[in-house]
């Protein structure tokens, strides 16, 4: 996945698309929009009128060398052949070692209680598995959509066209082309987890 933060306007459409599509419980967000600026959301850094603000969306970075997978004692966290890091609620024991091991803050969520919802029936994609009390959940790149040839929700809906999804090993893919053309970075690479989410800057 590739996010062009020069285009991102912090609108949160990706966050809400994720919330709806994956039927996330109350209070849980797999994809958050952070303000890179002042102390609170939508406030800039600096003193008027010399100001700066940027937005940074943060979801599971789907590392090639994922610390969470190594930390998971049951195999609930695992990496698919295509690179998507998955979470199997059925065998997750809720030890939260994955959360401890992950260098990125709050990309994984723990359901301490029975997941609660605003509506009394499941919404979103029908393939979505119900979340369980005492387990960890996180972004899975909408694998059920990817398997059907669809884009992850957050990528499909982005009004600023700041999100891209594709095969980095295919040199002709849009993500590869963009990475060649524009300055880019990844988050916290010194942890050597080899994140699969690239940021155009």
């Amino acid at each position, binding site marked *: 996945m590739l996010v062009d933060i020069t285009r991102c306007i912090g609108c949160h459409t990706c966050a809400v698309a994720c919330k709806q599509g994956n039927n996330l419980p109350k209070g849980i967000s797999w994809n958050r929009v952070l303000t890179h600026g002042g102390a609170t959301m939508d406030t*800039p850094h600096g003193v*008027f009128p010399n100001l700066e603000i940027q937005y940074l969306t943060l979801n599971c970075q789907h590392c090639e060398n994922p610390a969470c997978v190594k930390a998971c004692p049951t195999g609930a966290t695992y990496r698919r052949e295509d690179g998507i890091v998955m979470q199997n609620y059925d065998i997750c024991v809720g030890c939260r070692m994955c959360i401890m091991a992950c260098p990125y803050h709050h990309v994984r969520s723990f359901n301490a209680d029975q997941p609660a919802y605003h509506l009394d029936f*499941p919404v979103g994609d029908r393939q979505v598995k119900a979340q369980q009390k005492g387990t960890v959940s996180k972004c899975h790149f909408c694998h059920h959509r990817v398997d059907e*040839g669809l*884009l992850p929700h957050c990528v499909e809906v982005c009004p*600023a066209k700041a999100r891209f999804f594709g*095969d980095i090993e295919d040199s002709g893919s849009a993500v590869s082309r963009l990475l060649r053309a524009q300055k880019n970075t990844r988050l916290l690479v010194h942890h050597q987890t080899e994140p699969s989410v690239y940021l155009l800057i």
Partner: protein
Amino acid sequence: MNKDVEQSPAAERSDAAEKLFSCMCSGNCQSRCRLLVHVRDGRAVKTSMAPFPDERYNRVCLRGLSHVQRIYDPNRLKYPLKRVGARGEGKFERISWDEAIDTIVTRFKHYQQVYGRQSVAFSAVSGSEAYLNGAYSSFRLANAMHATQTEHSLDMSDTHGLGRVLGTGNTWNQSNDRADLVNAKTILIWAANITDSHPHDWRFVVEAQQKGARIVVIDPRFTTCAAKADQWISIRPGSDPALALSMAEVIISEKLYDEAYLLKHTVAPFLVREDTQRFLRQSDLTGIVPEKKSPDPYMVWDSAANEARILDLVEKPALEGAFDVSGIKVTTAFSLLKKTMAAYTPDHGGRLCDVAPDTIRNLARLYATNKPASIYNGFIQYDNGVQTGHAWGILAALTANIGKPGASVGHIGRVGHDINFAKLFFPEGRPNSKLIPWVYLKEVLKSGEFRGQPHPIKALYIYASNLVCNATNQNEIVNTIFPAMDFIVVADMVETDTTRYADIVLPVCHWFEMIDIVQGPFHPYTAISEQALEPAYESKSNMDIYRMIAKGLGLGEHFDYTDEEFIQMLLDNDTARAEGLAWERLKEEKVIQTLPTCWVNWQDNKFPTRSGRMEFYLEDPKPRLNCGVAIDQSREHLPVFAPPIEAWPDNPLYKKYPLVYHTVRQRWRLHSQWFGTPWLRELDPEPFASINSKDARQRGIEEGDIVEVFNDRGHVVLKAKLSEAQRPGMITVPKGWQRDQFIAGSYQELTHDYVNTTSYNQCFYDVLCEVRRYSDAKAG
């Protein structure tokens, strides 16, 4: 990754377990996104972005993706209610539809018999812009009843100012298609926070920027689009016309204008009579007034012949000069413009706007020379909006930044050209309903007259609108306007600040529970909005409600049509037929393209003004609506800087209330819609008053303090958020929150309802206030 899924196809299809419907998000952001509504077991479980034929127009936002929670909103009105407590107390009792309709019909009949047919008024704003069941749905009934309708008085001041120059009147059909922004080399984003209010246009701005266009944002506040722009100019709130006029001064004094364009497509060479201020015409010289429909040619000055001649006969008329034509003293419109603009030097404009004079010079040069240039403007929310719009028209006329790809000015609104509104709205073939601007209603109630005729109003039927929350001067609405009404009906989907004041509350369907037809303007398509769901609880569509009322009033013959038959009335016109815009086809294909993509307005440089040219000089300036109130025309031929009516440092009130008060639109709500949507409230749980740290420090206010923002009209109590994005000397409170979402008061208590008799427009930002810690306020 072993799959390359960069192109997302619209691969989701209906099957036995999940039915998909093509619906339209019809709110007043006007983006008109096409959505797929996914229905399982009769319930909406998801909305997703549905494609348009051209990918560039595919769009959805966080609100469009939260409809499921709006449909099943806990605040949803479930059945008709009648008031049992005092108005505003919020005590209601469930009643049947029969009782609700009987009550309404009996009351309406009584008022119309005793006080005249105009005594019942319908009031809508923009709760849905779908053509049949939205904010126009009462027009047929109101005209059949010869009832009164209120006009919204919103977003119309600069619209009127620019509209008089372009000849577009009360419409927003001014600019090019937004997708055309990619062709601009300069884009001035002026008083518009695109990234919050029209996020789907942002990609076009970015694309232009990536191709080398220069993006300048003019806004007192540091908005997200200001952060992304190449330049941000923070002007003093309400000084917009001064900036535009000063730019015009630079363009004229530095001769950066396009003389050929001015001579050919504007009134620049027309001769203005010193005595009447009108254009000199042939009849002024011949004394023979032509027959009504015959032309009376405009006269221009032929320098070669040294005489005034008919416009069409002069190859190159004089642009400048004052002349004597058979004893009539005249001056070219351009010379008058030049003289008027001369006062607005960058030094003077800079003082008014609180920006450096060179900033204005460079901005003017950029707009005039780095062409094509577009002005993407928002709505001016000050009393001087008319002058701002007028000045924008002058800038476009001077530089010929209009009628070409990438060159555009004003709002977008090219819709309805293929819709036969008259057939639906006027069942007797003519308009029978008097239109009173909302801001003028109080005056009508006070005097009992409209346009010199008795005009008592006793009943108000409010729908597609949360007036108490969204209209200015809330306390005047609930303490003056509502008590003047014997009977108030409010039809809505959810409980709001307004339903609390109703005598009868009617539950209305969500958009996806009824059928409709929707058009752009932010895309070139006409689309069906299918009925995806059965009406929830006992809710009914607006048209179904009007069918019942009409039957009770003996007007049933006008409503003996199905929704589909009504929609077919709208499509019964030659333009629609030529476009292939037919209902059966729309039902089959869901979307029909009815405008070109990337369309450019005014390409032929023919403007719907009297002269057919851009009339930057107005010989006969008129108010936006006829309320029988004369205006001082001498002040409106050309724009001059008038300070905002309240929010300006020269106002003595400024000493008591030194902060300009902005109630801003944010992405979390659309006006007041989505105010209670749980997913959005998780992200944006409560309102904040945003204050610059300098202003906060002076008042001992810290982050998160509970503060009272107040003026003589009212107050609102909420948490403070310190943000350098706010220009010192101003405070912003987000709009759309309901009263019970604040700690006390409402953001709309502070705004005023001053009536500008040219624009008849609510000016939300033209407001002064002060702020203090709530603990200090309570301590007295």
